[in-house]
């Protein structure tokens, strides 16, 4: 088989997309990376428009999830961005340039592409699969080899897999190779069509976590299509909920969609357990942690009883300096014993500032004290989260 480079343009720099006059990194100012303007798509075989007058902006470095029922036009929308489907009308800009004015082949080489069934080339080894686009772009062997090794490390793939064929890999491994292949030339933009749908739920959750971790580091601009609202909530910086004809019902961060669904359609689509789904998105560090009833190990019985009375509880947290020792209740001190004379009970479960409020709620409903105790990584006491605090957080 001949080398893959003969059709490639000379050193095509897919990173050259900064034609937008962006206003600084890290600030609030954001650059729009992908822009759809009044885009429609009509298929000759159907009566209505698959995509009807859609306008949508996707910010640089954001993961935007297009979610909606099957047939809503989400995949069609995604496929128009790299011109696998040509729009009937409207304009699409990627990195500031009109995709309709670009050579579709070169456009696609600059955009990472991952599909549900992965679509690895079965007759080429894993290494050759990952190297597909670099070879098309005419990279030299050495650069390709280095990049392949970089990507296998990034996606936690075994080097030994590189010489195998896709048919020899597990579903989860294939999905990761698919992502590695899409990242090969470090494209600023990636399109992903249900990339984790074909694997079982446990593997899917693991792939999602790993992918999120990678995305936090790489900050690609990603258009991600799924029909799974939970996947959307978990991964998205911004979710576009699409109705039939790719009508945008709401386009907002997941937290906002759960807190304030813009229409009945969105409410229905988001489904039951909206409160729990929202709690899963908020971390303990994001809410006000209450100090709670606290005494030092050296405190007297009176001090402990006063702390309980003030907090309206029948128990008190016992600390040694900053460190959490446990808790004691009113009855354990009977007979006039001081705090130091009582062995504090350990909290059955604790949370850290990074835990989600959903985890905190789980602990609250299961614990004897009906609070979730927050500690930092060194077991340093931070405070407590109460049910009242969670309820207040969910109130619109």
């Amino acid at each position, binding site marked *: 088989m001949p080398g893959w480079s003969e059709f490639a343009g000379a050193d095509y720099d897919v990173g050259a997309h900064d034609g937008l006059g962006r206003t600084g990194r890290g600030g609030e100012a954001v650059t729009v990376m992908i822009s759809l303007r009044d885009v429609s798509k009509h298929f000759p075989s159907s009566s209505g428009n698959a995509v009807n007058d859609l306008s949508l902006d996707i910010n640089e470095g954001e993961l935007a999830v297009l979610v909606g029922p099957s047939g809503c036009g989400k995949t069609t929308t995604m496929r128009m961005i790299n011109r696998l489907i040509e729009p009937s009308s409207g304009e699409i800009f990627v990195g500031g340039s009109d995709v309709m004015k670009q050579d579709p082949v070169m456009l696609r080489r600059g955009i990472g592409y991952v*599909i549900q069934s992965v679509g690895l080339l079965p007759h080429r080894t894993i290494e050759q699969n990952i190297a597909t686009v670099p070879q098309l772009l005419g990279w030299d062997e050495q650069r390709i080899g280095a990049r392949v090794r970089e990507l296998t490390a990034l996606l936690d793939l075994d080097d030994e897999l590189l010489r*195998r064929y896709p048919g020899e890999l597990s579903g989860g491994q294939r999905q990761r190779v698919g992502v590695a*292949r899409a990242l090969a030339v470090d494209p600023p933009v990636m399109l992903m069509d249900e990339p984790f749908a074909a694997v079982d739920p446990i593997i899917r959750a693991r792939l999602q976590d790993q992918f999120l971790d990678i995305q936090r580091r790489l900050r690609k601009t990603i258009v991600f299509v799924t029909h799974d609202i939970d996947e959307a909530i978990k991964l998205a910086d911004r979710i576009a909920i699409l109705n039939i004809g790719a009508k945008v019902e709401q386009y907002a961060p997941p937290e906002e969609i759960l807190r304030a669904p813009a229409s009945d359609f969105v409410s229905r689509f988001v489904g039951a357990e909206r409160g729990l789904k929202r709690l899963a998105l908020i971390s303990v560090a994001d809410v006000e942690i209450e100090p709670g009833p606290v005494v030092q190990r050296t405190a007297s019985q009176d001090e402990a009883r006063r702390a309980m009375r003030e907090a309206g509880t029948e128990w008190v947290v016992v600390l040694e300096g900053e460190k959490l020792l446990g808790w004691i209740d009113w009855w354990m001190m009977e007979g006039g014993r001081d705090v130091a004379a009582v062995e504090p009970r350990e909290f059955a479960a604790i949370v850290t500032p990074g835990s989600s409020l959903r985890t905190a709620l789980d602990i609250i409903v299961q614990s004897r004290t009906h609070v979730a105790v927050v500690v930092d990584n060194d077991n340093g006491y931070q405070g407590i989260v109460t049910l009242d605090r969670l309820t207040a957080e969910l109130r619109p």
Partner: protein
Amino acid sequence: MTVIAEPFIQWSWIFAHGHEMWTYTLQHLVLTVVPVVAGLAISLPLGILAQRHRRLYNPVIWIAGFLYTIPSLALFVLLIPLTGLSLTPVEIALTTYTLLILIRNIVTGIDEVPAEVVDAATGMGLTRRQTLWRVQIPLAMPAIMAGVRVATVSTIGLVTVGAIIGRGGLGQFITDGLQILFTTEILLGAVLSVLLAVLADAGLLGLQRLITPWTRKALAGATS
């Protein structure tokens, strides 16, 4: 009835004609390879075209099928006014016989390449031509090679018949043997022709495995 008094097979005659056996076998091989390769050269563009433009498929298959139904001997004879009495009409006729099976297998092979693989290839920025030659044709190879094997085996059989109007190949033993009703020679030609067909088939299967290593590996991976 002196013929019957002779032994059915005269081994001494066979051992005395080793040189002809070798020459005729090589001729037979060349007479087979030429129409198969020519058939492939015609079928590949036609098959690709028919696969891509579906409305061409039926006419192409109809013509190839029509050619296939003409009895070989009749076609050999019909071509003689154009080519003279030689092996050329045989080779032309045999080429036309390979078309049906080759075109059909090429189209089926390309059809069976998973749509998502083609989609992924296009989405990564392979041109249509690159997708065809680097993805579709390699993945259609098992089906194409299956067609080549059938075409080769049937051509080996028909080359034997071709010896009736031209000279050369293992059919020579049979036509010569028939003229003097010499069973040893007739049987030798038939047996060597069958042997050649079996060996050619096995050789092509080996070649197919060699050029499609992923099919073996995938199978091994699926069972382990």
